């Protein structure tokens, strides 16, 4: 089920909320677990069993880790845990890609398995692994109640597209939390803003990007409009989804950490990744980069660590060499910034923002393109074009210029700053606007949902 679907909005969500608040406190987690499983099984019932298998395996791994933490064998338990989790993820997400790559490299004809990717497997596998690793590191007490662990992994707001919520963030909230009207109302605001981001801005920009990426012989203008539209689409798609997840969690009294912080105003690529998909970046930092030695090793080893992390980041996003290249691309820029570029960029603030934005846009070309030649042709059109401007670019500008402009502004902190000032200066009128605007967003987003069949969530394929 998608958050941006009518069944979720008008049947599932109100039912879950009303029953949740009618139930005695001790039944609420059980209700959330049952409804989360229904939420997941609604679209892909057969994969619900796979997710439950993942929960069960990691529940026992954590118990064993806790039980044998002072014995040498605990490392083997951890090794097995990582192997099993990555094995599951690898089979469902990477087996086809791996065999195809081997076949192409060595000219073999091995059978390529056609494996369907279960919804949200990248997210719940990372949830589960972080839980066991945190137990191993002694950051959290082991969860003896399997249903509570299942709720942590399967909780529907973050189940299929994140953010990657760490166990230590919500362990205590699963045990005991206080639901307040303040949280609920804030949750409603956050959820409706996320819904509007996804359905109005992301889908609107997505139509522009799709149209342009399907064209041939792009002019420079068209190529830039296309990639800007795609950058806005992916930002509003994913940050909108995170907003919805955070908002929904608040309605049930859970507090998730932020996942985005206006990434397109970053002054360096390193800063971009501190603002973009924060939960993924910090996951790789804490569970891969730091265990490899992080910054506390020699410069060359640091670069090796960065290379590993960024290749994995690319691969996590998709089973394709273009994603690996996209990860490597960021890895290289981050290494350069670490070596010398970062210091230079600090001295030229406006240029550094523009520079970073251009690098990010080029990165999105690799991310969006199916193949390398496609990406190279697109980048050529952006920087060394045959034609600067054409009528197709004029059409896109006239038809979608205002939408893209609104989306560009909405991707910066400007609306938030103006909104906060208005609320303060207008007093009660401002407060009324602050909450009334959430209802307006709900109506506008529902309108967009009903009016349009164009409704793909990009991040679901990860």
């Amino acid at each position, binding site marked *: 089920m998608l958050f941006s679907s009518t069944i979720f909005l*008008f049947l599932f*969500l109100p039912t879950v909320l009303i029953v949740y608040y009618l139930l005695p406190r001790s039944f609420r987690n059980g209700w959330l677990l049952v409804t989360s499983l229904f939420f997941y099984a609604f679209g892909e019932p057969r994969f619900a069993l796979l997710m439950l298998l993942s929960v069960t395996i990691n529940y026992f791994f954590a118990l064993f880790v806790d039980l044998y933490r002072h014995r040498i064998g605990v490392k083997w338990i951890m090794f097995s845990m990582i192997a099993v989790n990555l094995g599951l993820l690898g089979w469902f997400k990477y087996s086809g890609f791996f065999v195809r790559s081997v076949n192409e490299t060595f000219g073999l004809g091995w059978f390529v398995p056609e494996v369907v990717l279960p919804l949200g497997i990248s997210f719940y596998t990372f949830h589960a692994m972080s839980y066991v690793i945190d137990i191993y590191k002694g950051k959290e007490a082991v969860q003896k109640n399997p249903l509570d662990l299942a709720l942590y992994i399967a909780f529907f707001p973050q189940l299929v597209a994140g953010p990657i919520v760490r166990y230590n963030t919500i362990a205590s909230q699963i045990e005991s939390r206080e639901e307040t009207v303040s949280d609920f109302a804030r949750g409603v605001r956050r959820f409706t803003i996320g819904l509007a981001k996804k359905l109005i801005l992301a889908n609107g920009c997505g139509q522009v990007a799709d149209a342009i990426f399907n064209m041939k012989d792009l002019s420079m203008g068209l190529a830039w409009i296309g990639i800007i539209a795609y950058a806005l689409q992916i930002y509003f798609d994913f940050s909108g989804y995170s907003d919805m997840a955070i908002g929904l969690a608040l309605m049930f009294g859970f507090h998730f950490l932020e996942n985005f912080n206006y990434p397109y105003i970053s002054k360096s690529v390193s800063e971009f990744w501190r603002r973009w998909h924060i939960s993924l970046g910090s996951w790789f930092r804490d569970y891969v980069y730091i265990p490899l030695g992080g910054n506390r090793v020699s410069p060359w080893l640091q670069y090796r660590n960065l290379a590993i992390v960024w290749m994995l980041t690319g691969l996590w996003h998709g089973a394709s060499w273009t994603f690996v290249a996209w990860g490597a691309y960021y890895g290289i820029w981050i290494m350069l910034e670490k070596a010398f570029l970062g210091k230079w960029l600090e001295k030229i603030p406006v240029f550094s923002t523009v520079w970073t934005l251009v690098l990010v846009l080029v990165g999105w070309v690799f991310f969006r393109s199916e193949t390398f030649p496609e990406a190279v042709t697109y980048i050529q059109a952006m920087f060394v074009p045959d034609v600067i401007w054409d009528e197709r670019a004029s059409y896109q500008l006239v038809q979608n210029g205002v939408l893209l402009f609104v989306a560009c502004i909405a991707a910066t902190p400007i609306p938030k700053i103006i909104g906060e000032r208005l609320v303060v200066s207008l007093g009660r009128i401002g407060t009324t606007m602050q909450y009334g605007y959430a209802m307006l967003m709900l109506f506008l987003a529902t309108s967009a949902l009903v009016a349009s069949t164009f409704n793909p969530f990009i991040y679901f394929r990860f």
Partner: protein
Amino acid sequence: MAQPLETKNKQEQQRTTSFERIMMWVTTISFLLILLTIGIGTLVREDRVRSQLENRTLAQSVDPTIEGIATGKDMLKMETYFTDQLLLRGTFVEMQALLSKDVFRQPFRNGIYTAKNGYMIEPSASTRVQIPNVFRQFVQELDRPVYMALAPSKTVIAERDQLIPSYVASNARTRYAGMIRDFKAAGMTNLSLDQLKLTDYFKTDHHWNIDGAASAYQTITKGMDLRPVMPSKSNRKEGEHAYYGSLARKTTLAYATSGDQLAYYEPAFFKGINVCYDGACDRPVIDESFVQQEGDYVDRYEVFLRGNHGIMSMKEQTKNDRPTILVLKDSFANPVLPFLAKSANLEVVDVRYVPKSFDVSQFAKQKQVDSVLFLHNSNIAGLMKTYENTL
């Protein structure tokens, strides 16, 4: 007495806080109420079969099967059903169109361009389709005069009048000219309808209006050597409700600056024409119920012959000395046929609505027609395959 500043600020803060708390409750309650009202309203309300706005059949409730649930197909169907039947669906669709037009200032909506004069145009840059050889064979084998009256689509006229912005690729004129060339080469006599003006078309629909149809009738009678019988202006009537046609349905009313007035000639003028289709005769030539019905999206164009029918005959019983014409047509012909039936006996075939096994040549011979008239608009590329099968 004036209060100390600090106390006043504290009170203000308290008031604001309590007001904000009220707003929080209002937000929470209204959020749940909106979701519940729409959700329960959709479930409780009787299912609608068809959407007038979208001119399509709406998805109906699903009887789930184990296989359907296991594969997730039934859930998808359920989602489509619920969205199709959603309470206030039409209002939401209109609201989205309003957002596109007034906030995002998008001149195009679902591929339709609304010109400054209110005319809705559907630009098209599709590739030109060669007419199949079967037309040439049909003309040769039939051994009777075959005429082609190909109405320029509204897009052709809009291109000619430079109503479509220069940045929009549209090649309707080229395709129109190419098609006429092809039909002539196939041995048909072209009855040129190039004299048509933009005002001969509806603003919000892709069809021509009664003036366009009357103009075409005059060209056809002249070209086919028939006696034209034109009604007087006093026979002309207009519906009291605005007509929003196919293009307005695609954009919704948000983009339609004003509706059209659907004009027609009163039924009395066509008295004596016996219309038969679907095994029954004495069908109305003009069905005024379509102009009298209330509703923004009523398909009022069906006032003419109640729309399209696979096989239809139109004859004036008292006039047996007139030629019999086989008319192969699309919906553009519907307002022309009543006029044409005053000049000739008509056997009408709309190949979109006949069985695949239908043979037009056989039908023409069986009905002993004197001539054949193809009466179409220039957007018939999609019909070529059907003609290939039926001619």
